[in-house]
């Protein structure tokens, strides 16, 4: 891929917000995944309707974070219970590691993911 194509998303950031569905479709204190060609992205909804998006892979051994128990702004990985911060993707406590987070926003009850970033390597 040429450098020019790679930059395309950055140039027109505004136009890369993809509507991935209504907030209502994500359970409160839960998550759903958005499947993209490059990766599965876990979109989380907290008790008070905040949304966060993380690569759906735990920094420990790749556990699917979308299946974890959401509490506060954190999720407990379903495989070995690492606790991941939803905002930063960082493992908390004694564990070290970070999962990539993606720009996501909520507007008029719909969830938008920035595909410019999500589709980039």
């Amino acid at each position: 891929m040429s450098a020019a194509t790679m930059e395309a998303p950055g140039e027109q950031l505004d136009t890369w917000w993809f509507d991935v569905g209504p907030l209502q479709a994500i359970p409160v204190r839960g998550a759903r995944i958005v499947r993209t060609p490059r990766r599965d992205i876990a979109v989380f909804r907290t008790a008070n309707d905040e949304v966060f998006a993380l690569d759906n892979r735990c920094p420990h051994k790749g556990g699917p974070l979308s299946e974890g128990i959401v509490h506060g702004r954190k999720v407990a990985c379903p495989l070995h219970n690492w606790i991941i911060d939803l905002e930063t993707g960082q493992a908390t406590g004694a564990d070290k590691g970070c999962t990539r987070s993606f720009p996501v926003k909520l507007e008029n009850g719909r969830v938008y993911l920035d595909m410019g970033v999500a589709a980039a390597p």
Partner: protein
Amino acid sequence: MTQAAGSPRRKLVVLGNGMAAGRVLEELFARAPERYDVTVFGAEPRVNYDRIMLSPVLAGDKSFEDIVVHDDAWYRRHAVDLRRGETVVGIDRTARTVRTQAGALEAYDALVIAVGSRPILIPVPGHDLPGVVTFRDLDDVNAMLAASARGGNAVVIGGGLLGLEAAAGLALRGMTTTVIHLMPTLMERQLDPNAAYLLQKAIEKRGIEILTSANTSAILGDGKVEAVRLDDGRTLPADLVVMAVGIRPHVALAKDAGLEVRRGVVVDDFLRTSDPRIFAVGECVEHRGNCYGLVAPLYEMARTLAASLAGDATAAGYTGSALSTKLKVTGVDLFSAGDFSEGDERDEIVLRDPARGVYKRVVLRDNRIVGAVLYGDTADGSWYFDLLKKGTDVASLRDTLIFGQAYQGGGVLDPKAAVAALSDDAEICGCNGVCKGVITRAIVAKGLSSLDDVRAQTKASASCGQCTSKVEALLAATLGEGYAGSARKPLCKCVDLTHEEVRGFILSKALKSLPATMQELGWKTSCGCPTCRPALNYYLLCAWPGEYRDDAQSRFINERVHANIQKDGTFSVVPRMWGGLTTPAELRAIADVAERFKIPTVKVTGGQRIDLLGVRKEDLPAVWAELNAAGMVSGQAYAKGLRTVKTCVGSEWCRFGTQDSTGLGVKLERFLCGSWTPHKVKLAVSGCPRNCAEATVKDFGVVCVESGYDLHIGGAAGLHVRATELLGHVETEEEAIEHIAAAMQLYREQAAYLDRVYKWVEKTGMEKIRAAIVDDPENRRSLFERFKRSQRAVQRDPWAERAAGREANEFTPLAVLTPVRRRMAAE
């Protein structure tokens, strides 16, 4: 800023005579009383009044005269031409005129649109029947007052601020009032579930019935309203229906005039619309993407707009508002502000006082307050709101922040020193009104040395447990070295109580939801953690079978999706093979499913059944549907519940078999399956003491002998290997089933979450268990009955329910984005 003498007065026309219009004019006359000739068109046939005070008018606390903001004299004094009862229907931007419904034209130099918003009417059948009203202006209030004078039933649709204020007013006026709310908790936009729980309790205390998660499907009546029907089929009698489900900015006029309109009339920071001569203000506008539904923002907008109109070029623009809400229902103290999206221990501070019904929560981010919810004691609401708006760094106040403004400035106390410093008459236990002196005197005089002693002797900490840590600090301070500290292990860091104490209180205080439990037992976090939430969910489920609504999000993934997660994120599927028996047809169906869904591994488990490993999550419902079609149901290999019942071939085939061990195993499995338990439960039935089914390392085991059945309990063969102990001996299958089910119920009711049966047996002692099950037939019988009752609520196949579409969202991605060719334009 007075205007230069001689310059001609300009013509200002204001559309709408509501709260925003009133405030703009006040601010304008204060700055430039002579600058404009003002004409105001108000669709309502009256002077300007304080709309938010309509609730007290409905409740009877105020009259209309009390809430008038600008009386006739005010309009005369400012030479305002008030055209009351005149609705404007058109704006001609070229001619710069507005036209009223009656056809009158009025020219303007500057125009202000302040037409507010409209209540949303949900378009269910019957929404236009007489007797259906909204809650927006004085006419609505008068309609409600007229209806309430006739008495009868009122149904309020919408459990937000307006709906609740309407309901409270109607109830005070003597109507039998019900609130229907679509969401699970009241005022969900302003409150977290904990505050909403307290609010619901307070509203219900007024005799108002609240139905949450309830959706209106139709309003019924012949010529006037008679009833409201919900989509679950319930019908509620109604002589009056109030729709309070939200508002929508009134944009039609602006839109028809060709102004830029999105959700509201779009304005810039100086409240200018896309036409520089036309301004908009109040609830009808959209500013930086936000529409507002409260008065504080429109007061701020009014100040900016008045400055613009007065020609003050130096005035700062409007940048948006932070919001705070109070509910105007007498006796309900509630405040919420900002963003209180769920925090966690690091960035939220929670204070609960169950005895006083107080809940306070302040949410911080980077040492700044970003949100606050207060219930029961809102004295500090404005202080927190002020800190929030100013973005004050509160790091230095953090330890005492939650106690409020009055506590600021003192040194930071550790809890022990704080308790020691209290005076003797300071109240420690709010529930039972026990003060410090009583406790310390009892400790010394009666030689008390443990928390339980103090509870028994003084009642302190015996009701909600919230003061437990204070009582412990008192014990430590009074006994010094002599206090060994308690061996009590709190359930988790969110609460001071043990598992057993929490379970006890759930029953004694009839706590039936997560928020109720957390509030009444003084949880220190707003909504728990992954340790306490699954435990509480189980305790509530066990205590209130059929009544408590399971919280899927408080369950580990396996129990939520009824399959076992594997290391690569796929799942395993284990159908029941009752007692280890299968048939050619079942095996054929399993083979078909494995091939059709390309399931990579098929394995015989250690529990006498077959495991299909590596199933994709999306395939689960279809896999289950096919297994269901062949008569197979979930083996609950994922559940804290009954797993397998292993059997041997027994008397049917084996030359040593004494009884039908296979048949008994099947009966036990069918009877016990589906039940939720503190940890997983495994059984085995062996046909003779050779014990080929390994019954003596199971949670419950049966070993058949010539004279009947030896019943075993408390075995394990996992992390710990432990042989069972003998519970007793019975002669018939029926007795065996009754004993085991009763023992299972005792385990369900008593054990701490995540204690296997053997742990519970060790903690409780065999004698006690034997006494409760074997020696006390009456008690056994009632345990058995309770078990049967709770089974009625759960014995449905979770796979069949999901294959039929339940929680379909759980099994599909939210969205699938496939690559498309980019930059099509360039090609």
